């Protein structure tokens, strides 16, 4: 496990910088406001201990919240999906289970597996995030629509990043 630490630290920092410098600066519309940083949680190795997933999600959320002035909002949403990730991994597991030494990436798991996996977790994250933001069901239709379009946008950028990051 420990040998992955520098690599994942690098991914951690890259995800934060991309979110802060590019995606937070986009400001095109409420409907196109992707939470690219969830990529870090998606990419964690299959055998990552639960406590480590939760703690690293918490740290990631805190930092993102600091940049967005949204104390606790992104933290709550990202910890939520870090908690559900093992269950989702179970749900979408291939028939023969995960091969030891494999990672949740397109290159190793295939496109359709990765799309299914990331779409479920990103949708959970976005719906949690935007309902925490709205904190009420006043504009429930609008909130649902915002969460939906942002789920698509985030998934799109996450998938694109796969082709750029792990080309080799």
């Amino acid at each position, binding site marked *: 496990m420990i040998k992955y630490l520098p690599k994942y630290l690098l991914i951690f920092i890259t995800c934060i910088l991309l979110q*802060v*410098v590019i995606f*937070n*600066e986009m*400001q*095109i*519309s*409420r409907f196109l*406001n992707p939470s690219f940083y969830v990529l870090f949680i998606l990419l964690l190795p299959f055998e990552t201990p*639960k*406590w480590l997933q*939760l*703690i690293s*999600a*918490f740290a990631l*959320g*805190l930092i993102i*919240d*600091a*940049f*967005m*002035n*949204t*104390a*606790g*909002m992104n*933290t*709550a949403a990202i*910890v*939520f999906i870090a*908690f559900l990730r093992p269950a989702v991994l179970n749900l979408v597991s291939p028939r023969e289970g995960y091969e030891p030494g494999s990672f949740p990436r397109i290159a190793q798991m295939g496109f359709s597996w990765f799309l299914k996996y990331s779409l479920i977790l990103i949708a959970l994250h976005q719906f949690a995030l935007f309902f*925490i*933001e*709205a904190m009420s069901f006043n*504009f429930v239709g*609008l909130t649902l629509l915002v969460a939906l379009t942002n789920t698509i946008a985030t998934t799109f950028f996450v998938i694109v990043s796969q082709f750029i990051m792990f080309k080799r």
Partner: protein
Amino acid sequence: MRNLLKLFLKYYAVFLFLLLEFLAFLMLFQQNHYHNAVFLNSASGVVGFINTRAAHVVDYFTLKKENDLLQQENLYLRQKLEEKTAASAEYESTYVDAKVINNSVVRQKNFITINRGEIHGMKKQMGVLSPTGVIGVVENTSPHFASIIPIININFHLSAQLAKNSFYGALGWDGQDPQFAQLHEIPNYVDVQKGDTIVTSGFSYSFDEGKLIGTVHSAEKSSASAFWTIQVKLATNFRNINHVYVIDRAKIEEQKSLEVKHD
């Protein structure tokens, strides 16, 4: 006891999850109620530094727009100068210019961060203007940065009035469109027309009277209440603010301390 420990070890992830969510929501609610309690925000040093860098990158893409804005700004300043020489210096305010280093428009609780802080004299509650109109109020300060709660934040409220007859109401934002805010509490017997100018009322500690907020976009009478529902087209385009002015009202502390005595 051993069973309890076993149970805890088995489900430790659930407990950890609940603990972390509890902390996250604690922060969330604290931010809403007491902004001071937030230790991590965009006004803090490291975050401010990185935001400054990011703002530098974006600067290059907006040079053209920036030029136009500077031109507008010149005009504004020239008018200001005339006003200043003409008007009496009875209630003097000074302006501090600042640059926006972080801005959001797509959330419900939008914030703006500027590159002026306590060492430049920034204090909470100071009003912030753009060359075209009212932006918001200073919310948090650090030595070098300040965060501003703009009109387009659902927690923002400001006393505003109709320029033509000085009827005043409460300006707020419903979290929908960053171009429009809502003016409440204007009685429905008052004459309100599309295009009427909405300005600050002078009842707030942050702004002098008569600062432009926007114009009436639509006004609806509802049979259920005695008040207008007014959509205000904001004079400031929050998507492209770069330079702002913070109002330093010289005598506001005096006014505040006087008014506290009545309580």
